[in-house]
């Protein structure tokens, strides 16, 4: 036998090489198809529904999806059954943990068991104080239905808030409708709100007026070149634009006006000098009485 390959051997070799290339191309093609489809699906699945809230300490959504191995250990260690694991077909990425505040809110455990349970750090282990958690931001989204906005004293969202008087405060405003009452407006402060959702759960309305939203939906962002004049003034100790000129009121002698809230100030000893009474209302009432008398 010679060492030269025969014709048949060579063609067999060529055929097998061709078959190998063809097989590889087909396998590679199939894998590419799958990869493209999956890649597209993967891109779309980054968007989390606004009503789904990640557990405390969760990384930013894009990082989270690269870090969470979908094991559900955080769900198991949640003592209040707050956390759910998304199943295939849910709008939340399959296998990842989330909660719906209106169903069961986060109870803000001091020891944060869900974060401790996370084996990968998709829930950031550097979160040690639950008050530092930022799961989202509560937004009083429906002023038209919120009872406090109508002048009622519901206050439930304020009372239930675990960070009461910091995350939610009641801001008193004049009730123009009645003219003699106050509105107590529940106001959320982003530097303290953890996004636990207890306010959303507690809202007494048929559907809640206050909702926890993802930060990127709930917060605007100031232009980075913006400077608030009054803060800059405080910092500098004086106006940065031009020295303030004291406003001169053209008031009768013995009267002055305070801009900081006092309003019109009338010196007592000068009252007899003035053509008007001590109380400006006297003058007004006198005029209206005169008008009514004339009509009669």
């Amino acid at each position, binding site marked *: 036998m010679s060492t030269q390959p025969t014709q048949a051997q060579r063609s067999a070799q060529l055929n097998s090489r061709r078959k190998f290339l063809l097989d590889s191309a087909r396998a590679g093609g199939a894998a590419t198809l799958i990869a493209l489809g999956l890649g597209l699906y993967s891109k779309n699945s980054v968007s989390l529904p606004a009503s789904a809230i990640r557990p405390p300490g969760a990384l930013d959504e894009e990082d989270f999806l690269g870090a969470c191995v*979908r*094991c559900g*250990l955080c769900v198991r260690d949640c003592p209040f059954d707050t956390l759910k694991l998304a199943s295939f077909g849910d709008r939340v990425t399959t296998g990842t943990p989330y909660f719906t505040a209106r169903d069961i809110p986060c109870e803000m455990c001091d020891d944060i068991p869900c974060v401790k349970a996370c084996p990968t750090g998709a829930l950031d282990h550097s979160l040690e104080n639950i008050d530092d958690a930022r799961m989202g931001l509560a937004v009083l989204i429906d002023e038209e239905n919120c009872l406090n906005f109508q002048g009622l004293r519901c206050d439930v969202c304020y009372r239930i808030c675990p960070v009461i008087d910091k995350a939610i405060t009641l801001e008193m405003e004049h009730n123009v409708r009645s003219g003699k009452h106050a509105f107590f407006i529940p106001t959320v402060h982003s530097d303290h709100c953890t996004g636990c959702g207890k306010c959303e759960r507690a809202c007494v309305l048929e559907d809640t007026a206050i909702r926890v939203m993802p930060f990127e939906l709930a917060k605007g962002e100031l232009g980075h070149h913006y400077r608030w004049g009054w803060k800059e003034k405080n910092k500098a100790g004086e106006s940065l634009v031009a020295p303030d000129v004291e406003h001169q009121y053209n008031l009768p002698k013995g009267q002055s006006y305070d801009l900081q809230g006092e309003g019109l100030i009338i010196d007592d000893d000068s009252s007899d000098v003035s053509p008007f009474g001590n109380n400006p209302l006297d003058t007004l009432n006198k005029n209206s009485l005169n008008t009514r008398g004339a009509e009669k």
Partner: protein
Amino acid sequence: MSRLQTRSRHPGTDARAEKGWLIANKWLIARRFSQLSILSVFLLGPWFGIWLVTGNLNSSLILKTVPLTDPYVLLQSLFAGHSPETAAITGAVIVLLFYVLVGGRVYCSWVCPVNMITDTAQWLREHFKITGASSLSRKTRYWILAATLILPLVTGGISWELVNPVSMMHRGLIFGMGLAWFIIFAVFLLDLLVSRRAWCSHLCPVGAFYGLLGTHSLIRIRADAREQCDDCMDCFMVCPEQQVIRPALKGYIKKNSTEVIGPVITSSNCTNCGRCIDVCTKDVFHFGLRLNNNLNNNLDNNFKNLNNKQPNHSSGAEVL
């Protein structure tokens, strides 16, 4: 070869007749027991409040102390740019060491819940004599494996977990299925109608990954009694990775060498399922170690010639 062409019986019929039902199915029964036990241990918690293990196959915690993490999903996470906490790394190392030792694809045949689905599909396929259909390359899985590792680089997320039937079925059974049955059913139909063992032996990147882990695993199936083989082909018929048997059973010669290698099934794609042991009436196969894999001493010249005549790359024989 003539028996293969004329046969109409199912593989395993002879073994059942000769060894009895129990012996002829013992490894299959052991595997089902293993698969169901592992699943049950996970289900004890949510169903009965007995928390021996929490989590799922992707990552779990045994008795609140020992972490276990799927090294494949952790690798994808690394490719997505995340540096995991030590618990996940420890868990992955434990799992890695175990499978490196016992054979990576032991995961496929002894742990993975999808195996029961695809085995059922294969059983029905044989029962209803569904044959042929599309031919997939067994290497497709490596391409898909590569794709699942490249995707996290591009998307920054663990993309494969969006559709992975393996974790989806296991997680689904423990935490709630949702529509995951769709994907499981798709895998079932694929194996039943599209191609023989299409999912586990051709496409699944999880199996491909674990296969690569077990390239040098210690525990292997050996065909030490290969002289007794009567070429009934039953082992070949039941094997989910048919290409792995011949080199061990018939010996093979490494490229540029005269050494004849056997009788250990060295291919990393062998799932150590032991089905070949079950169906063999001649007790050719048994579980053993990857040692003394050189037939030169006890091989007759006839066999050497036979092996030389057949080009190594034909009929799926392994070329190393």
